[in-house]
């Protein structure tokens, strides 16, 4: 699909900044290093901003089941609906105050909770009595990057990825280390992050 960032192209364009004209010509780093650093940058972006938001509808409720697995790459849950009815977020303390047997009371869910049940699970209250689609809107990190992964994001994210990789490359201890360049590139990646936060919102990590 158009509008995606091709990580192969990002790597090709940052090679001159690594004093190489091809991946094979890299002296101090490997292509795998660059891909790994780009992957880390993508995941960091998903944690620090709410730029990569998806609506997952792959889960359905089941009668008598209170908790469900969150989408595999979920970072932060932003909104939950049962069918087209929005559910309200709540803490288990609040739910317990309302109904001490909230974990077993059956009914149509009107609240969701995530605290004290593990990081990858969402709970519904009251406990569903039947099957219904559960739509979860959340910040999600992209699938693990490989050499030619496409990232669905505005074109300027390519600049963020380039500076993130350069910061790691020149910050690595060894003959190639250039602390001034590494610090500047890290600051440039941070600059991009702040811009994305201002447009899309801050993530779970500041």
């Amino acid at each position: 699909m158009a509008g995606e960032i091709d990580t192969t192209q990002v790597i090709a364009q940052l090679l001159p900044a690594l004093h190489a004209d091809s991946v094979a010509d890299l002296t101090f780093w490997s292509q795998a290093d660059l891909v790994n650093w780009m992957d880390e940058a993508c995941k960091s972006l998903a944690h620090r901003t709410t730029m990569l938001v998806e609506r997952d509808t792959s889960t359905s409720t089941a009668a008598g089941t209170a908790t469900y697995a969150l989408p595999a790459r979920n970072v932060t849950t932003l909104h939950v609906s049962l069918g087209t009815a929005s559910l309200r977020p709540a803490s288990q303390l609040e739910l317990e105050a309302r109904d001490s047997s909230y974990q077993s009371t059956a009914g149509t869910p009107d609240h969701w909770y995530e605290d004290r049940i593990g990081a990858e699970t969402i709970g519904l209250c009251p406990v569903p009595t039947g099957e219904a689609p559960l739509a979860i809107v959340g910040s999600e990190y992209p699938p693990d990057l490989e050499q030619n992964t496409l990232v669905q994001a505005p074109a300027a994210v390519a600049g963020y990825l380039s500076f993130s990789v350069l910061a790691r490359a020149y910050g690595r201890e060894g003959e190639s280390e250039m602390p001034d360049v590494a610090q500047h590139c890290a600051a440039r990646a941070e600059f991009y992050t702040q811009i994305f936060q201002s447009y899309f919102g801050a993530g779970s990590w500041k």
Partner: protein
Amino acid sequence: MIISDIVGRILTRIDDNPAAPVSVYVAPTDPVVNGVTIASEVLAAVNEGQQLAALLTLCLENTVEYQLGGDTWITPRQGLADLIVPLRIVVAGARLRPSTLMELDAWNSSWQATAGTPARYASLGCNLLAITPQASVLAQLTYAQSPAMMGPMDTPVIPVEHHEDLVEYGIYRVKLREGAQQLTRGLNNLNAFLDSMTRLGNQTRAKSLLAGNFPLPFELDKFDRSKLIDEVAKFHGGAKPTREA
């Protein structure tokens, strides 16, 4: 200014030969236009500068007719590959009010399944919109646009008076990898670029406020550049790079 002019000015200002540069990477397939070798490294730097300018200032707006198919949830990037953020949505001459999902929940508990003329929307991330009420209507969607990647004969799409800023960015970008004194010198060029983008962003913000656009451009004049520029310059004990007051 077309790209070959910009690349030529960059190469000249870094004391290189525009026809046969030696201090930047030149691919065997890089073309020569108007006597200037369009070095792929420099072209990539100019493209990156223009992308950053558009992101920082949201100065490129595009309005399209967008068919709302009666769905609540829309992924606009499927049809708008150059989308940065939606700025304004108008249906039947009325502007939809930007909201958060929490506001929509408070406004109408069944907002996801309410038929009617769209009145509000929530924008989530870079590729998700929620529209309520739902109707199959044609909307005018105004959005901040990413510029397309430029080739040697293209003209930058940011305002003409800021084409020179791409020269500043390009100089900074090709000096970056050298580190040390070259990086410090390049930071002066980056400062000049950011100063100019501050002015362009402020102009866009003033216009956007009047037009009722949301979000507004990044407030660059409130951004602390010390980690980006001043602290890097201290590595070499050099003078602090110049910037406007």
